[in-house]
């Protein structure tokens, strides 16, 4: 009589990927598609504005912003590592730095927009450049905001002592999102400030 494979030879359920991470990766894939469409629209409309300010005339390359945002990817990675080793203080500190860097980025973007709107007279309605610029950069900024809200919540929990090494998987999932936001900025930066200018 044939004896079927016995259980020991089978894969252990523990080998299945963490569902939080899988879910987050799926979300990121979906979001990337959204961004691609906006990027495509941006690329398609480069140079097609019929009137109003052109990118060359008004855009300045936001070096500081970019540096801040990209380095925040590093800091959040450091905090991920810290929590994995259950170093709560380090974790909280690096998380704080990440939040600070993200906030600087947001303020910088706000400042840039302020200048564009009140100084250069470029609004969403002005021309195709305005339309695509504000929507693409705004889309990214809205993701930064959502990310920041979540990071701040996490930070508050950490400060009140509700976080421990056991949560590190969830924190990594959140960090994944933040990495994604940073990576998207690279694309947005390339498209808006390098190709588009």
């Amino acid at each position, binding site marked *: *009589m044939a*004896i*079927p*494979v*016995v*259980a020991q030879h089978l894969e252990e*359920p523990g080998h299945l990927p963490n569902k939080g991470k899988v879910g987050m990766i799926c979300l990121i894939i979906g979001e990337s598609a959204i961004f691609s469409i906006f990027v495509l629209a941006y690329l398609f409309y480069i140079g097609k504005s019929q009137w109003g300010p052109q990118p060359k005339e008004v855009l300045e390359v936001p070096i500081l912003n970019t540096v801040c945002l990209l380095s925040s990817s590093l800091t959040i990675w450091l905090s991920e590592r810290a929590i994995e080793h259950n170093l709560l203080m380090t974790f909280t500190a690096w998380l704080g730095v990440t939040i600070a860097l993200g906030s600087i980025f947001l303020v910088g973007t706000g400042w840039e927009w302020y200048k564009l709107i009140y100084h250069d007279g470029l609004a969403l309605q002005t021309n195709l450049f305005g339309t695509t610029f504000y929507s693409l950069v705004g889309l990214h900024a809205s993701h930064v905001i959502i990310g920041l809200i979540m990071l701040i919540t996490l930070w508050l929990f950490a400060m009140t002592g*509700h976080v421990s090494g056991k949560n590190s998987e969830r924190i990594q999932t959140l960090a994944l999102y933040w990495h994604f936001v940073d990576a998207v900025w690279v694309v947005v930066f390339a498209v808006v400030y390098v190709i588009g200018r």
Partner: protein
Amino acid sequence: MSTQEQLAPSRSEGAHGGTGVVHGDPVQTHAPAHTDSIHLPRPTAYPIIAALGFTLLVAGILTHYVISILGVCLLAYGCVGWFREVLPHEMHENITVRVQEISIASARKSVGRLPGGAESGGQRAHVGVGAFSPLVGLKGGVAGGIAMIFPALAYGLIAQHSIWYPVNLLGGAGVSGMTGFGNPTMQDLRAFHMATLGFATIIHVISCTLIGLLYGSILPLMPKHPIILGGIIAPLAWTGILFAALPTINPEMSAHISWPDFLLAQFVFGITAGWVVSRSSYYRTAKSLPFAMRLGFEGGGVGREDGEDHR
């Protein structure tokens, strides 16, 4: 009993994120009276509240901003509630397991077999697995492809005084528009063109590989006269089809082609490829099987020596 080993009870290691953890001792397979309880996520109204909030938020754009404000409030309420539902610990409810034996059995007790499976590679059902290899077909295709170059070039050289003639015809086939080869003159056809050479090579390689693979998989299905089938009948058939269809596919090519010579080249291909394929061991195995089994649609059972499985 194999049953128990196979669907052996197990204790979950929490890999399911707390949604379905079995508590208690390892379950006894033969103990229907076990009364464990299982944790399932607790029903919650927060998702529906959040969904309603989001919808109202959007609906406000369409109607009145007050509705949006209401939506935002609901959304925030839903999110916070949801958050507290999963943090710090996921809320769950205990469901008591009320085991009742479920018997899984089929009235269909035995499984039909077709004889002769042992030769087909020892499988009950994957006909040809292990024995059949697409490589054979590939080899046949390559061999045929190389072989047919000679009659084709010879034809070009003898009849048209240029080995580029057949190359240009083939290369211009699908690409008359792309290579700017509309309405070619004889001069054009005899001269050397890099583009058509490239296209011709691609077309030749792809089609020879494909047809070779096809030979590799189909000839063993009809193993009686491989050379007649693969070498003569098949090339005749596709030349006939091409003859009928080429005026539509590519009128220029059809106007310049010499069909007898074309057919000759096809025979060379067919015979070579057919010969290579028919030397493979799989081909020889397949010879002894009935057709439907060669096809792999039917039978090909493992002829197990004992009658145990034919209860």
